[in-house]
């Protein structure tokens, strides 16, 4: 939802990042205000997932230039856990399996760490159990998933539901959902999307990284950005996603190149 004069939540400016010496993000700009839903689309290898990971603080990526302000704080100076505690949440494209750690234990530890940070009371295992079961109902998850090891042996769809369950528990200010729709069948997509929609408030924001327009039928974006070669080359409304679905990415790329040539000519003229 676009609200005039809504405060800026995250402001990414001139962001460049690389992994193993290979530049992935190249001068990327993005501004997200409270209450907004942004979709980031683009072909494979355009840097969408890298952007998600860099914002969450993945240590494998080196930020080589640019700034990221999150609610006025220098996000890039913060450790991954500090970002999480400040309200940044990354829904993983491939949620990690952690054998030996019970999902309930993991969820409670994470929840209580955040509660402590926010000056709220921590929940003991029994209280937490009641609390988390309510949230699981929203995602039509069986309580059996509490006793199993984190994501171990979960199907693709179950892992994604478990991600959204974490989002529901942690109530982030900014949720970055990296291809949350991949591997979901139609029913699971509907359930997960409904979960996300219920969590969207005028105070928070969501960045959806996705390949497919079908997710955006369920979670309607206010802005659609197209990434290519590490930067955003086009921004539009939700109708842009429909157009991409119909026409692919080549025309955006061609349009961007033409605009680039025009600018170069202007400069040299």
């Amino acid at each position, binding site marked *: 939802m676009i609200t005039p004069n809504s405060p800026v939540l995250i402001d990414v400016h001139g962001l460049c990042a690389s992994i193993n010496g290979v530049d992935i993000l190249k001068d990327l700009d993005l501004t997200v205000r409270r209450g907004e839903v942004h979709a980031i689309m683009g072909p494979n290898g355009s840097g969408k997932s890298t952007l998600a990971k860099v914002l*969450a*603080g*993945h*240590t*494998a990526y080196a930020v080589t230039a640019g700034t990221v302000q999150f609610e006025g704080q220098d996000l890039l100076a913060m*450790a*991954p*856990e500090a*970002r*999480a*505690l400040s309200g940044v*949440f*990354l829904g*993983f494209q491939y*949620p*990690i399996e*952690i*054998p*030996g*750690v019970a999902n309930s234990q*993991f969820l409670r*530890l*994470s929840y209580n*760490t*955040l509660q402590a*940070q926010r000056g709220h009371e921590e929940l003991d295992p029994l209280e937490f159990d009641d609390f988390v079961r309510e949230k699981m109902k929203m995602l039509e998850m069986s309580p059996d998933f509490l006793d199993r*090891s984190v994501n171990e042996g979960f199907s693709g769809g179950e892992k994604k539901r478990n991600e959204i369950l*974490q989002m529901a528990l*942690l109530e982030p200010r900014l949720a970055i959902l990296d291809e949350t729709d991949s591997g979901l069948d139609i029913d699971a997509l509907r359930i997960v999307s409904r979960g996300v929609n219920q969590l969207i408030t005028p105070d928070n924001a969501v960045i959806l990284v996705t390949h497919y327009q079908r997710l955006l039928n369920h979670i309607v974006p206010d802005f659609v950005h197209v990434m290519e070669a590490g930067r955003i080359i086009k921004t539009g409304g939700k109708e842009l996603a429909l157009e991409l679905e119909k026409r692919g990415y080549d025309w955006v790329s061609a349009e961007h190149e033409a605009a680039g040539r025009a600018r170069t000519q202007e400069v040299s003229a």
Partner: protein
Amino acid sequence: MSSATALRPPTVDHLGTLLAGQPLPAPSPWPAVNALRERAQTALGALAMPTLRDEAWRFTDLAPLHRLTFQPVLSAGGLQAADMAPFALGDAAIRLVFIDGVYAPQLSSLAHEGGVVVTDLPTAMATHAVALEAQLGSQQTLGNNVFAALSTAFLQDAAVVVVPRGVALAAPVHVLFVTTQAGAISHPRCLVLAEAGSRVTLVEDYVALQDAAYLVNPVTEIVLAERAQLTHVRVQRDGRQAFHIANCAVSVGRSANYQSVSVALGAQLSRYHLSVVLGEGAECAVDGLALLAGSQLADTHSCIDHAQPHGTSRQLHKCIADGSADAVFNGKVVVRPGAQRTDSAQSSRNLLLSGRAQIDTQPQLEIFADDVKCTHGATIGQLDAEEVFYLQSRGLSDSAARQLLTYAFGAEIIERIPVPSLKRQLQQRMLAQTGSQP
């Protein structure tokens, strides 16, 4: 009282030094026990302490042991039940306690049901002399093992468990060996006879009430008759200065089932040698965990011998080494000629938490039959950076994430312990131990 040094040639060696000044035990009222001791004493005369040149000891240097002297403790100290509270297992109704190697009846609670015997050796001999004499010290796999011979040469007492034919003991039997005195040497012994079709769970537990160096030299002998089932949980939570050198020999009869979980948490230097011989159609699962920090060394050697056809063995051994600790695993699986249709799987998984820690793992397969299914494998790794990041992205600090992942790595083995109270104690201990890492 003669001295054990008399058994040795006059040259000074480490075994001789260890034996020096240790009185041989007073003659036993049972001729079989005396004969057993004499055989072991004779064997000791021909044995020497292993060195790094011995293949089986190439990663385990006993030099720190040789620098110290140890004395036997001849009477149990005046411990109270309250002293045992930290180690008490709520779900183990039957408990045998040995203090510095000496049986402590006042701290033990014995079995009195269904003909089950759980008691000290003298008491057991009064009623089961024939069976005990036949089995005590009888397992071939303990032969020419210097520490096993040392134990037998000084054999005084033993924890004896006899489960009669067809009897299933619901509650676990807890055998607790406590060291209370600095510089003590003790030779704890367990003898377990599970008769045909019986079922029992044994917890063999080594603890200390003091922090100084001491030497525990246990020997455990287990005989499972056909169709018997034993779950054997072995916990080495000795003091951090302790030396613990243990041997265990298990004979698994036809269609019998041996499940073992061994956990090594304590001692500066520990060694556990487990030998399992499987009869026809017998099964075993032999799992282990060594959780080490500082300058600890833990060495696990196992040999699973498929002596007969249709046997099944499973082994998962895990080591976690932090600081400058050393973990050693050598797991041999032997399939004898004729042991067709053997099904064996062995896995050694290891976690290195520090650049100064070391893990040496050596799974070995020796197959002399042609119709078998055998797999083995070993991995050594560090904590997975993606797993750490995942937990950090959920608000856990780097150290909390590493603690949780380390705990989880070890918990897979602890989970296999079917005694809830012990499982909880070890989980707590493991959380505390993994939490202290930088």
